[in-house]
């Protein structure tokens, strides 16, 4: 994945803090990727890779989708594909939409206050 290449310092080991930060955002990112309609697992992964700088691990996303389903935040359905095998599509439930809105509110509040605090550090650079 992109950990090594995208790392700002170019070091080969990803910063553990950065890894935790990205991991923490994954749940919101997955919910957000489903905001405009249903997607199957690989589409979600591609959407995350294309539209966010998240380090997306396949082995993390599928269990996470399973958990979101158990929690009733997404529901899933099997759809026969042209490729000859069924694909499992996920869509947000009303509870999932509600949860996503709550998380966005927390995120926005948090990131704007952090940006305020961090502004002088950016200028010092």
């Amino acid at each position, binding site marked *: 994945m992109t950990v090594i290449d995208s790392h700002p310092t170019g070091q080969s080991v990803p910063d553990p803090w950065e890894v935790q930060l990205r991991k923490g955002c994954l749940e919101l990112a997955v919910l957000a990727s489903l905001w405009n309609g249903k997607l199957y697992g690989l589409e979600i992964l591609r959407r995350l890779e294309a539209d966010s700088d998240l380090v997306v691990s*396949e*082995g993390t996303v599928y269990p996470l989708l399973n*958990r979101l389903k158990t929690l009733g935040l997404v529901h899933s359905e099997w759809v026969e594909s042209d490729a000859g095998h069924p694909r499992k599509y996920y869509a947000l439930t009303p509870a999932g939409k509600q949860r996503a809105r709550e998380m966005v509110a927390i995120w926005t509040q948090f990131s704007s206050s952090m940006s305020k605090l961090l502004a002088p550090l950016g200028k010092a650079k």
Partner: protein
Amino acid sequence: MTIPADDAQQKIETYLGSVRARLRGIDETDVRDIVTELRSHITDKVAASGGATPARVHAALAALGAPEELAGQYITDNLLAKAEITRSPVRILDVLFRWASLSVAGFFVLLASIAGYFLGGSFFLCALLKPLHPGTAGLWLIPDASGDSTISLRLGFSTAPSSGKELLGWWILPLGLVIGCGLVVVTTRFAIWSTRRYRASRPLPGN
């Protein structure tokens, strides 16, 4: 070089079989769903990369992580989700048993949780049995021959120890209920907390 479709399929099925074997305990329909979804994902990945060569199949499987890592993610995610919906000790212990079979950390969390629930349950039971066994149930201090003493939580089915002293009397009733419930709650929190810690400490498989 492309490999025969059968060989590629065989390799994928071996991997999926290995994941499936480690998901025992999760509902059978869920396991079937998980395995079918993974198969569909791997097939799509291999096809998108240009067809089944040994390297492409290998890469698709490696990106998902080792079977035990992937199964561990499903099991701990499942535990966290269940714990959020129900705080039932039975459900939590049920999932901890699967986790314990996959990792040393899970094994110790399971041991500690069993101990916590057992002690909590014993206090609770002792309090409930006190009205039925007023003279024998309770927390006893029993001196032994060597001059040492043991503290024993007795449910009161057997006769009272001859030289022992009951410490709490009827206080065991409210205290036992409170301590019992408290221990169960603390143990549940501990199980959830350690699962979160464990998950946070895992490397992202496939990177």
